[in-house]
Structure formats: structure tokens, C-alpha cells
């Protein structure tokens, strides 16, 4: 494999929080590689560790350990100053709720100009022109006159566009988008996803897209990580994961998503129970209690990391068997 095509290489990323209830293993031993121009999807239920993973990658969580090799340099070993120099410039982030990362009292122009003045050294006039160009790029009509509005005067879709404009204004090499469309209507979601897809393709940006919607991933991701209880339960190319998953948890998620062409009147498949308490994980597999397939070994021993085919891993005692059965 051509190593200089890899922009990000993560090894053993672990983020544990000390809380009154005990140690919360929010992210536990996450590893993956991402190439330039590639889109990695991360999917999982609420609390599975998706957001903590992305914040840890940006080194926004002090507790995090492991290697985050970004273009050859380990972010976790950089000085705070060096991290600040790449954050927002070479790696940027879009958050689920645009209001939490936009300042409602500052004009959009001010917020956009701040970034390019800091990272690209633009002066006021250049920064303003750049801001107009960015708003046009993300499809905000009448960008020049919108520039001086405040975020609260905009619709949800419009704010999310501003967030994307901010994230992309320094042409980052890595974009992390944490549920960028969850708060939006499907029609606006389709616009925003198309926009992210087009812009990142044009700039050859690598993308980490976090979502709980398997349909969104199917359209956007080259490869997918499925998280459960802070761990990577399965990792595969998108095509392989949807066609031939080797993990009972992934299969449960896939089956419980109602299809649009589904003409069956029967019940939906349901994964029984709920995810375990992150501060009190069981000894064996954290999914065992909800798993149809669970045997004694699952309750006793943590699941092994099984390499079922090239680039396809599954964390399950029965991964190989399930993979063999799924062959058609």
C-alpha cells in the first residue's frame, strides 16, 4: 500500500473518564487508517463513543491516549501550540448542533474572518472577500448581503451551511463531521450531504462522517466503523458491510432499519434490551446480553478481533462462522 496516500493513522485510541460511578470507557482501543480523499463513516447507538472519538482525534479531550498519526506526525505528542496550528486549518470539524459552535451574537462575517485571519494571515478586506466566496461555495443565496447577519436570523439548514463554510475555509485535509444533518429535515439533509460530498471531492478532502443513520452512510462512506460500548465492533468497506456483515450487532442495526420499499406488514426486527452502562461494562462481550447468538463463552470472555477478509474485521467470538453463513 502506498503509505503517503494515508492522511490519518489511528492506533489504540482510548479515552476513559473517571466519574463518581466509576471509570467510563467511552472509547476503548480504536484503530483505523484513512487515505486522502476517502470517507470513513462511524455509526453506532447513542453513547457508543462516536463523539468522544472525534473530539479525541482533534485532541480536544485531555484524557485520551494512543497514536493519532496525521500526515506522519502523532497529534497526541504535539505541543499545544502545534495542535492549535493544525486544528481548524488542516483538520476541521462540523458539529451536530450548529448553534453550539456558532456564536449567536457575532455576525457570520466576523466568525468566518476570524479563522482565515488566524490561519491564513489574511487582512480584514481579504478575509471578508474570502468569507463571501465561502458562503457562495456552500450555496447561500445573496451571500454578500447575508454576510452580516447573525446566526439566530438563519434557518437550521442555512446555519449548517455556515458551519460547513467555516470548516472548509482553510481547505482542510481532514474534515470530521459529527452528525451534520441529524437536526435537519430529510430534504435539507439531502442538500447538505450532496454539498459535503461535492466540496470534499473537489478538494480531495478526507472525511470522517459520524451518524446513526445507516442510509446516510450507504450513500457517503467508502468504509465504515460500527461502534458499540466504546469499541469498534466491525470495520469494513461500505459495500462489504452492508452485503456481508460478520457481526451480530451490525446485523441487528441493519435489520431494525425500516426499508422504504419494504412491503412486509410484519414486525420490524428489534434488538432486545439497551446498551450497557458505560461505567459498568460486563466481563465478557458487552453485547452478549442482547445478542441472539450469545453462548457461554460470550459472557465469560471478551470477544476477539477477527480478521474475516482483507480490510474487514469483526469483534465477535462467532465472526468467522457468521461471515461464512452470509456468503451467497
Amino acid at each position: 500500500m502506498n503509505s503517503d496516500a494515508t492522511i490519518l493513522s489511528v492506533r489504540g485510541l482510548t479515552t476513559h473518564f473517571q466519574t463518581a460511578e466509576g471509570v467510563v470507557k467511552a472509547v476503548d482501543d480504536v484503530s483505523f487508517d484513512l487515505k486522502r480523499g476517502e470517507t470513513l463513516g462511524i455509526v453506532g447507538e447513542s453513547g457508543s463513543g462516536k463523539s468522544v472519538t472525534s473530539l479525541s482525534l482533534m485532541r480536544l479531550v485531555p484524557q485520551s491516549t494512543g497514536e493519532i498519526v496525521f500526515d506522519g506526525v502523532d497529534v497526541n505528542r504535539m505541543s499545544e501550540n502545534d495542535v492549535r496550528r493544525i486544528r481548524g486549518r488542516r483538520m476541521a470539524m462540523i458539529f451536530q448542533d450548529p448553534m453550539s459552535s456558532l456564536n449567536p451574537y457575532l455576525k457570520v462575517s466576523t466568525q468566518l474572518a476570524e479563522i482565515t485571519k488566524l490561519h491564513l494571515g489574511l487582512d480584514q478586506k481579504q478575509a471578508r472577500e474570502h468569507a463571501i466566496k465561502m458562503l457562495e461555495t456552500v450555496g447561500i443565496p445573496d451571500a454578500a448581503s447575508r454576510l452580516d447577519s447573525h446566526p439566530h436570523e438563519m434557518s437550521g439548514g442555512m446555519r449548517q451551511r455556515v458551519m460547513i463554510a467555516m470548516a472548509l475555509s482553510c481547505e482542510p485535509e481532514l474534515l470530521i463531521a459529527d452528525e451534520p444533518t441529524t437536526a435537519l429535515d430529510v430534504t435539507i439533509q439531502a442538500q447538505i450531504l450532496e454539498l459535503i460530498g461535492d466540496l470534499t471531492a473537489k478538494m480531495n478532502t478526507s472525511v470522517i462522517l459520524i451518524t446513526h443513520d445507516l442510509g446516510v452512510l450507504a450513500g457517503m462512506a467508502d468504509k465504515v466503523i460500527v461502534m458499540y460500548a466504546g469499541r469498534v465492533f466491525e470495520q469494513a468497506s461500505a459495500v462489504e458491510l452492508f452485503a456481508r456483515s460478520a457481526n451480530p450487532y451490525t446485523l441487528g442495526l441493519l435489520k431494525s432499519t425500516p426499508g422504504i420499499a419494504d412491503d412486509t406488514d410484519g414486525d420490524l426486527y428489534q434488538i432486545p434490551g439497551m446498551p450497557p452502562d458505560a461505567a459498568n461494562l460486563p466481563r465478557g462481550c458487552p453485547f452478549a446480553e442482547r445478542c441472539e447468538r450469545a453462548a457461554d463463552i460470550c459472557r465469560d470472555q471478551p470477544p476477539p478481533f477477527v480478521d474475516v477478509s482483507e480490510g474487514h474485521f469483526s469483534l465477535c467470538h462467532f465472526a468467522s462462522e457468521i461471515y461464512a453463513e452470509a456468503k451467497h
Partner: protein
Amino acid sequence: MNSVPENLISLEDVRVEYSSRPSLFGSGQSVRAVDGVSLEIKRGETLGLVGESGCGKSTLGRAVLRLTEPTSGRVMHDGDDLASLQPEEMRRRRRQLQMIFQDPYSSLNPRMTTGQIIGEPLKTFDLGASKDRVQTLMETVGLDRRFIDRRPREFSGGQRQRIGIARALAAEPEFIVADEPISALDVSIQAQILNLMRRLQKENGLTYLFISHDLRAVRHIADRVAVMYLGRIVELADAKELYRDPLMPYTRALMSSIPVADPVIERKRERIILRGDVPSPFDPPSGCHFHTRCPFAIDECSRIEPRLVEIKPGHTAACIRISPGHPHIGQNVASGLGALTQ
């Protein structure tokens, strides 16, 4: 009255207008959140109500239960206009008409125990609030009966939503408005709640108005589906029919925006991406409200208010570019048909 009407609920030209007080920014504005909706809900069916945020779904749902007074129009329950009932009779009807709310976090009183929350309607409607009855209800919705003294914060989102459902069921209703009952939940838990609602419907002969912006969930649970846009119903049909052959350009855009969980299909799929956001409800576009975003709009669309017309049997739509003789807009556009007489 002796005969039982087929329609449990019917709405006749219901309007709900909200007015805001004059403020710094000018004189008071008003929003027609519900703009002349006529609709029938049949006994025992699930009617799905879909549309983008702010189009008036919740307002319509509340108007059906008269939790929000309609500005005009009539809401009929069992053939009687709810506005004309005597207080005692209205109390009886209230019991039969219940609601499940979107947000399982804010719709339950955090200071009350599960037992108190579920027991409240039992007390209000004199149905006998025994501990046993409460625990039976808990079991019906799949909650462990031992959790009776726990408070909402000790439950997960899915479990809280079950408490909300048990509370609605406690009144022994015949009709439930479920306003986005699964939107705040994980996919895995959504399936649990959808299956539960279907089971309860079968067992208790319930009728549902199921409000959601998740078209996949609605496809799964609804018998018929109404599509709403800026206060108006723009299309209504059997669920299977609507998803197989959506007629309105708006409905087609909604359907094509739903991502399909299959990369092979999803990447080849033809998508209609709408331009722009939902227009401001304070100043809705003239004529057909959708014309500003419609890929097929012609001049007449900004002048003529389309009526809801039966285009195919049981399938109504409001668009001047389609008619019973010419139901498919794509073909009509291709063959150069302009505005059709309705």
C-alpha cells in the same frame, strides 16, 4: 346516536392561526400554522402525517384533541362536533382521546415516580388507580413492574417513551395522537416502540394519528399517509400507494431524499434535491406554497391555489399540473402540458 360512523375523527376546514404581539421589528405577524385542513381518520386505522419541520404537524395534532383551539372549522369525534359538547360529555371524550409526545425527556414530570405518572390518568378519570393496575400497564408496554417507584431520570430514552405510552393507555383511549414518538430514540429502540404500538393497536383496536418526519417509520406503521406543506395537506393516499407512486413534486422530493441503507442502490438512485429552505410561514408564497422550490413550477403555480383533487381512486393531490386523466407530472412535463383544469 345509534349507528357508528366509519370515521372516528373528521376535520372540516380546520384553521389554526397564531399571532405574535407587535414587537421591535414591526407590527404583529400571524402564522397560519394550519390552513384549511379537511381530513378523515377511520376507526382502527393509522393515519401517518408527514412534512418538513414547521409545516404544522404538531399544531394539527393538538387541534384534533382540542389542546389547541382551532381558529375556525370543526373537529368531529364520533359524528359530534367537539366544540358543542357539554363539559361532562367533553370530559368523557377527553379520556378517549390521548396523546404521546415527542420528547420522552421533557414530557414526564421528573419529580413524579413511574407509578404516579401512569396512575394520574387513572385518578383523573376515576378508573381505579390501584398499584396492580399500574403494574399491569407497565408490563403491557414492556417495563419491569419492579420499577414502579423509579423516577424518569433513572430510565433510558426508550424506557421513558414506554412510560409515556403507558400513561396514554391508562385512560383506555380509542384514539391516540403520537407526535414524533420515536424521533428522539436510537434506531434499535425505534423498532421496539414501533412494534409495541402496532401490537397495542391490534389488541385494543386503537386508532392512531402518527406524526413523524421519518418517512421510513411512517411507511412501516401507517395505513394511509397525509403529506403536509406549510399548513396544508397536499397529498393523501394509502401508504403503499403513496410510496409506490407519489404524485406531488413535493412528495416525490421527500421520498427521494430518504437515504436507503444499501450502498449499491443508494449511489445509483435518482434524487430530487430541492432548492432552498422551507419558506417562512409568516409570509407563505402565493398560489401553490411549494412553487418556489418546485422543479416543475410554471407561472400559473404562483397565481392559482391548487385544490386537493382525487387523482387516482383514494389518492388525492393538490397540483395544477396533474389531473385524473394525466396523473404523472413527469410525463405531463415531457409532453408539454401546462396548467390543467381541476
